[in-house]
């Protein structure tokens, strides 16, 4: 009934390491385009920045995917938590609960539930472990908080990647524009002389 989706361990790891896990060169703002192009052509510089840009976008996509996983996971944990809390309430009140539970997609059967003191939590990897109700509630609450925390970390990482890719994008446009202006000026210079 109450299940806890897998991969909790995996997502905890990403929270621990924070933004340092983004093993990419930082996108540096170009103060002076002319100085930046010293010793190389605009095309070469753009090519290099483009490669960085692709990299940033790729990482951003991966982060967005883990974001989607987290976003889907949170309501699942909340659902499990609500079920455990219901059982705890009923147990405290000493009431019997009548449940309609799904036998298959369209078939529901009736069950009387009384004096339930534990639930099996699905830990993933085909493992289910029985927990006393209070412990199950605690575990699920911790997992819920972790998932929310991970979502925050993920948002920060996405923001960093966005900054990098936007900066790089602007840099490319600036180098391109600088090059066009330079070529035009030198042409005009030759025409005039």
């Amino acid at each position: 009934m109450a299940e806890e989706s897998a991969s909790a361990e995996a997502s905890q790891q990403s929270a621990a390491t924070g933004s340092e896990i983004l093993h990419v060169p930082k996108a540096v703002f170009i103060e002076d385009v002319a100085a930046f192009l010293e010793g190389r052509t605009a095309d070469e510089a753009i090519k290099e920045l483009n490669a960085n840009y692709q990299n940033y976008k790729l990482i951003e996509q991966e982060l967005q995917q883990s974001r989607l996983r987290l976003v889907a996971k949170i309501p699942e944990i909340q659902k499990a938590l609500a079920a455990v809390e219901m059982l705890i309430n009923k147990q405290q009140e000493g009431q019997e609960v009548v449940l309609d539970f799904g036998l298959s997609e369209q078939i529901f059967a009736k069950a009387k539930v009384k004096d339930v003191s534990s639930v099996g939590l699905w830990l993933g990897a085909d493992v289910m472990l029985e927990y006393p109700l209070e412990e199950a509630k605690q575990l699920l609450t911790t997992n819920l908080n972790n998932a929310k925390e991970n979502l925050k970390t993920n948002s920060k990482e996405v923001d960093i990647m966005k900054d990098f890719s936007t900066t790089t994008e602007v840099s490319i446009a600036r180098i391109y524009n600088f090059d066009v202006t330079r070529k035009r000026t030198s042409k005009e210079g030759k025409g005039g002389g």
Partner: protein
Amino acid sequence: MSGSIQKGNGGPDVAFEDQENINSFNKLFTRSSEIEAEIKVKKTLVDDLEDASNELMLADEEEVRYVVGECFYHAAPDEAEENIQKAADEAKESLTSLEAELESTKAQMAELKKVLYGKFGNSINLD
């Protein structure tokens, strides 16, 4: 893609401060669409809960089925109403805070637009 410097247009060069503004704008832009999506979901939830509450009042049953997890449990209408009310209050609260966040995000975006369009005019695209 929002907030990009157009290629091939002259315009003043980008200072570090401008770059930071462009970056901020871009993030706000993404965040605002995220909030809008969240608001939509929450609104539906608030409406659904309201419908449920109304139906419950009209139903006049001794016992109703209340969804919990993947099951339905048989609850007294009072208990169901209490649960629905609690869920509705939570949903409304988060809807209010999301709406406030959206408003402040939009205000910041408008401010940045003013600054950036003021400096770069047509050579920047912020939509």
